[in-house]
């Protein structure tokens, strides 16, 4: 029974990033170009559990809405849009953290990441990635 439950969790919990085409790309400031980021790192970075990866400071940047945001949040953080919003609000109202920087448009996200060392975020596939590097989380 326990094995069946574990198998069910593993099937349900398989990251959709591994099973369907993503509508977004993960991007970062060029100073993170050589940094290897795992799926677990992604979760820790965007949920505020870490501030450094491989000794380098990292700063998550999130979109406020959109298809890329929705899919990224589901793929890497295992949450819905409202679930992520509630997670950040819980940090704020328990005094245990602050929400990450957020922007309404792709251009704002890219501009901020390009000009901020350690910044990491995501934008839609068709965005112009000038000034940032593309990451391939494993």
């Amino acid at each position, binding site marked *: 029974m326990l094995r069946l439950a574990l198998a069910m*969790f593993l099937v349900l919990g398989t990251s*959709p990033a591994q099973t369907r085409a993503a509508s977004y790309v993960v991007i970062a400031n060029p100073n993170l170009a050589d940094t290897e980021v795992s799926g*677990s790192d992604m979760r*820790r970075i965007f949920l505020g*559990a*870490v501030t450094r990866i491989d000794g380098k400071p990292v700063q998550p940047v999130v979109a406020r809405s959109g298809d890329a945001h929705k899919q990224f949040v589901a793929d890497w953080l295992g949450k819905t849009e*409202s679930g992520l919003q*509630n997670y950040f*609000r819980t940090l704020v109202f328990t005094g245990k953290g*602050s929400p990450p920087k957020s922007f309404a448009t792709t251009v704002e996200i890219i501009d901020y990441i390009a000009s901020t060392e350690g910044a990491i975020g995501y934008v839609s596939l068709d965005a112009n990635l000038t000034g940032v590097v593309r990451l391939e989380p494993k």
Partner: protein
Amino acid sequence: MSTIRIAGAPGVATLMLLLAVVPARAQMNEGPVQFHGFFTQGYAISDHNNYLTMNTSQGTAQMTDGGLNLTWQVNDKLRVGAQVYDRYIGDLGKGRVSLDWALVDYRFRDWLGFRAGRVKTPLGLFNDSQDQEFSYTWALLPQAVYPLDLRETYNAHTGGDLYGAIPLGRKGYVSYQMYAGTVPSDYRTGFLYGIEDAGFRNVTYSGRTTGYDLRWTTPVSGLMAGVSQSFSEREYEGELAAAPIIIKGKAKTYFSRQTALYAEFVHGPWRLDAEYRAWKSLTRILGPPPLPGRSGQNTPGWFAALSYRVSKLVEIGAYRSQYKFQELLDPVVTQTGPGANHVDDTTVTIRLDPTPYWNIKVEGHFIDGFGSVLSARGFYPRYHPQGIQPNTNMLVVRTGIVF
């Protein structure tokens, strides 16, 4: 003092006014200084009993709470902040503004940080976030595990915390919190009303607590599991209410241990939460007869909750929660009969989110049992001069805003 009475106006009304006049641009949510708040208003009506110190049998809107906080991220390691909280839920809170949390937080490393001041106590899934109704589906959290009337007894502590996150490679990561401190005394809470209804008056008390919380964010997408424990001591003084002369007594709860085992699983629009809470306490009572020499209680509870996000506007859900009461040392005084020594609650909810900052909830509760006068949990003899009925059906409508 941790509470402030705002002259000439209940604190809740003041909070309403503050929320009404705070312009959206004053939220300052993109800078190092952030200002946030929330406010909720509810209405509850039940068929028989009065629940959670409210006059629900007649229908009541005396179900209001709110909070405001200000936080300053001084640099990437240091953060300071404070939150005030106010509630007027029946006789709970009574509209006094209290300091909910106020802390200095220094994060040395990702795996080691320190908080000092008044800090929300981590215990199970929702203890430190139980006031944040905007963050969960329900109008009322499962009362078997998160009793609204006992909120102040273990919601926050004044002391110090260590916290951090430890990576486990491909196995996800573990977040931990460890704490020690004193528990603020509050005399507008069900904890005090329960002691008074058990036959005491002029009660004062103080307490201390230590504990930890470990939560594992697993490699399975959306699955988190954890365990928490808290260990508390409390000292009380009071007088026997029924005695024609003043009979003073002292008591010490020298052992009070809560253990929470919990999990959360999110898959697409589905969310499953479950928690088991074991709570055992032993109290020594000092005083002349008829005061008993010792008391011990075992009060386990659990809940399982399932919710489904239908659309951006609509979420539906249901939960089942069960609370049991067992007197360990003096079974002769335990109540018997229909409804005694348990509270089982089956709840269904629909939540509407017209905007990301405003929600409305409609919730039905179907409650079997009323617990025990020795461990009041939602139902108090003082609000039931005709006696408590074994079953309660209740409708709750609650709306909240957050910014």
